[in-house]
């Protein structure tokens, strides 16, 4: 009886780049349908944490389990694990040589083995749901940042993941384009998607998160329900961080 029942569980996860220890013992558990926001300064390890969960970075110590299965064990088929986990990146990372629909259907076709027609139909339905139906034949270069990021979210959703990781998905966007992306994420939360979200948007985190974790120098210093975290943080580092955010007018 340990990690069963958790959508995601991290135990004592350590990660270093050369001599720089980025994650220094992370313990974190997400129940199914839970939305957890990671906040903290740049370089606190938020992105690295997400990349480790998606096995884009190997970890040095500790274990990560998704839906009860340890994914950091030896001999695990990483391609199968990644199918279950969707990730959306800060810089969209769309494939520039493919149309929007091509981006969305690549995974379903090549990984899930769907036919072009099946994948196309499912892809168009998803695009329509997020208001992108008329963009299906456009190339990513021709879309606004907000549209590109929505396409990236749809591309991840097309794999029908059990867990979504969002890595500062609005940080590269012009301020007026942030809202459209955040509303898509709210929609996902409403539908019960389990999400781990690294973000600088404190208002959004307060709104959407079931739990907020403050990451500092590679450890989770404090966590709790957003109401508590934002109004009465206990740790002095958390207080300091939030004060600076308020001073910068970002909350």
């Amino acid at each position, binding site marked *: 009886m340990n990690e069963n029942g958790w959508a995601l569980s991290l135990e004592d996860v350590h990660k270093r780049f050369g001599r720089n220890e980025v994650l220094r013992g992370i313990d974190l558990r997400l129940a199914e349908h839970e939305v957890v926001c990671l906040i903290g300064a740049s370089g606190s390890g938020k992105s690295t944490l997400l990349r480790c969960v998606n096995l884009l970075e190997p970890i040095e110590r500790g274990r990560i389990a998704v839906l009860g299965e340890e994914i950091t064990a030896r001999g695990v088929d990483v391609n199968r694990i990644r199918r279950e986990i969707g990730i959306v*990146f800060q810089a969209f990372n*769309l494939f520039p040589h493919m149309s929007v629909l091509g981006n969305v259907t690549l*995974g379903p076709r090549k990984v899930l083995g769907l036919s072009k027609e099946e994948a196309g139909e499912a892809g168009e339905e998803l695009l329509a749901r997020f208001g992108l139906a008329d963009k299906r034949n456009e190339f990513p270069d021709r879309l606004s940042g907000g549209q590109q990021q929505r396409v990236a979210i749809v591309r991840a959703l097309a794999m029908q993941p059990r867990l979504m990781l969002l890595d500062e998905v609005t940080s590269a966007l012009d301020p007026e384009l942030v809202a459209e992306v955040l509303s898509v994420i709210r929609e996902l939360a409403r539908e019960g998607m389990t999400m781990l979200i690294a973000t600088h948007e404190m208002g959004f985190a307060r709104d959407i998160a079931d739990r907020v974790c403050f990451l500092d120098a590679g450890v989770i210093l404090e966590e709790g329900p957003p109401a508590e975290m934002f109004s009465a943080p206990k740790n002095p580092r958390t207080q300091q961080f939030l004060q600076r955010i308020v001073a910068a007018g970002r909350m």
Partner: protein
Amino acid sequence: MSSDARSVAIAVVSTIVFIALVAVLVVNSPGWDEVRQFFFNGERFRESFPKVAEAFLVNVKLFCLAEVLILVFGLLLAVLRSLPGPAFFPIRLLAIVYTDVFRGVPTILVIAMLGFGAPVLGISGVPTSTFFWAVIALVLVYSAYVAEVYRAGIQSVHPSQEAAARSLGLSRAQTLRFVIVPQAVRRVIPPLLNDFIGLQKDTALVAILGTVEAFRQAQIDTAASFNYTAYTATAVVFILVTIPLARFTDWLIERDRRKQLAGRTA
């Protein structure tokens, strides 16, 4: 008159004046009559040109066949050299040694070694046709260059593209095939065409094997007539093929540049 039309008119007039001046200077310089007699002899040109042009078909066959094989083999080499991880080290090493050797050895030497040497071995099943070995020699040499061009293209694709593809569950091979290589090839089409032009010219080296291609035909004509106009005719034939390709390459580069600019402002 618009300023565009004015610019064009000025360019045309100044070009005509410039060419006329150069022509007058050349025609009036000492020794011009001899140069014209031996290199630009109209009568000899009319006689040689059809023969050289016909022999040039051999060059065309050589570079078309070789280019197809080079594009495939070069990509294979580039992919092998990009394989990650310690287990693939011997394969990477092999690809590195290959490119180093075949970029280092003069093309004419490889053609001589294979063209003269291989048929002599008399191993059963090994073709003895010099044309066959000429193609192999050109493929071996040019694949080394083309592999480097491909490799530069593969490396120019940002690692975030690989991360995005792998995060969807695509395997390393699928990522290479559907995401990395298509982007890489698009970027290196201009340098690939450059190498293709180089290959076209280097088919003349095959003349040393006695294969009657354009240059060899010109040598035969020259030896018979003591006049070098046949060489001029050969040069014209090569240029007629390479210049359009060079302009096409320029056009592709310009189009890509404009597309990228459009992408950035959109």
